């Protein structure tokens, strides 16, 4: 056997998965070839150090949990299809309706609030204008000094 042929079969050789005849051929080659022997040793050590931890401990309640889940599944499967479909559709439909109503309420409140605010502003502005026209600053100043408009002309 040549080196490249041996290297391809090294893994199976180390795992004892070759036939007796194949294993003997590989073994003969390894006795003669230092490079392949080193490669085999490296593979063996890497695989030996492959420690992924022990098995998990047995769980004596697993069967109970399995039976409970199986029972739940059985009950949900026993319901008519339309009922299962309705159950699956209730949560998303409720959320969609809630979202839609929330948006409508938000839009409505925003419109009312801005309308009230703008009408309020218009009222205040008109009052101010009216006051300014009736009581101009000059008129107020003269009134403070006991004069009235037109005194100078006299």
């Amino acid at each position: 056997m040549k080196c490249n042929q041996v290297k391809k079969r090294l893994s199976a050789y180390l795992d004892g998965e070759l036939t007796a005849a194949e294993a003997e051929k590989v073994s003969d080659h390894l006795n003669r070839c230092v490079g392949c022997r080193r490669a085999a040793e490296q593979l063996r050590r890497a695989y030996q150090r492959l420690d992924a931890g022990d098995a998990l401990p047995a769980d004596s309640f697993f069967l109970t949990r399995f039976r409970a889940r199986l029972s739940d599944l059985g009950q949900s499967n026993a319901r008519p299809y339309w009922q299962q479909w309705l159950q699956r559709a209730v949560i998303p439909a409720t959320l969609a309706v809630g979202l839609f109503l929330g948006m409508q309420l938000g839009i409505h409140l925003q419109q009312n609030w801005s309308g009230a605010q703008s009408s309020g502003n218009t009222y205040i502005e008109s009052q101010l204008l009216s006051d300014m026209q009736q009581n101009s600053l000059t008129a107020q100043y003269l009134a403070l000094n006991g004069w009235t408009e037109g005194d100078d002309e006299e």
Partner: protein
Amino acid sequence: MDRELNQTMTDEELVVRFQGGDERAFDELLRRYEQKIRTLCWRYLSQPDDVEDGAQETFIKAYHGLKAFHPQARFSTWLYRIAVNHCLNKIRSQRRRRWLQPFSHLYRSDDHPADSMEGGDNDPLQDLERQERIQQVRLALAALPEDQRTAVILHRFEGLSYQEIADVMACSLSAVEARLHRAKLKLAGLLAAYVEV
């Protein structure tokens, strides 16, 4: 059928009894394989909830599929195949959803099933070193392509022969040999720091 009788029966005999309507036969099959399947799921999935869910789903699929199961096939091989497929599907769906949860790795659960493993020698330093080694192995395994990882897990940790792995993975014997060979070469490189040459 009492418990003692159950324990003397082969898996395939229990399957036939279950197919005949004996529910307790399935309970016995579950008792036999519960630890192995949970451990197999734990090798693939890191979160405790996923491990429990994976094992439960495997047995639920087995329960529903067992009526159509042919007793000439090995029950254990069939069960392993269900578990491996479930775990690989779970990993694929997690990979697809990862972009939605970019920081999920920051709040991983602390109560890992490995914490309750048997065989602890109560030396905190040795325990720490061992946990670190286990973590390195998990990362190295996760770096392997799916088919190589499955071959290594089934061979190295579950002790299946090449032929049994070929049955679980539905591939040829030479494909298993090639996958294991490539995986070992890659692992030798990935675990170089832990391998004394």
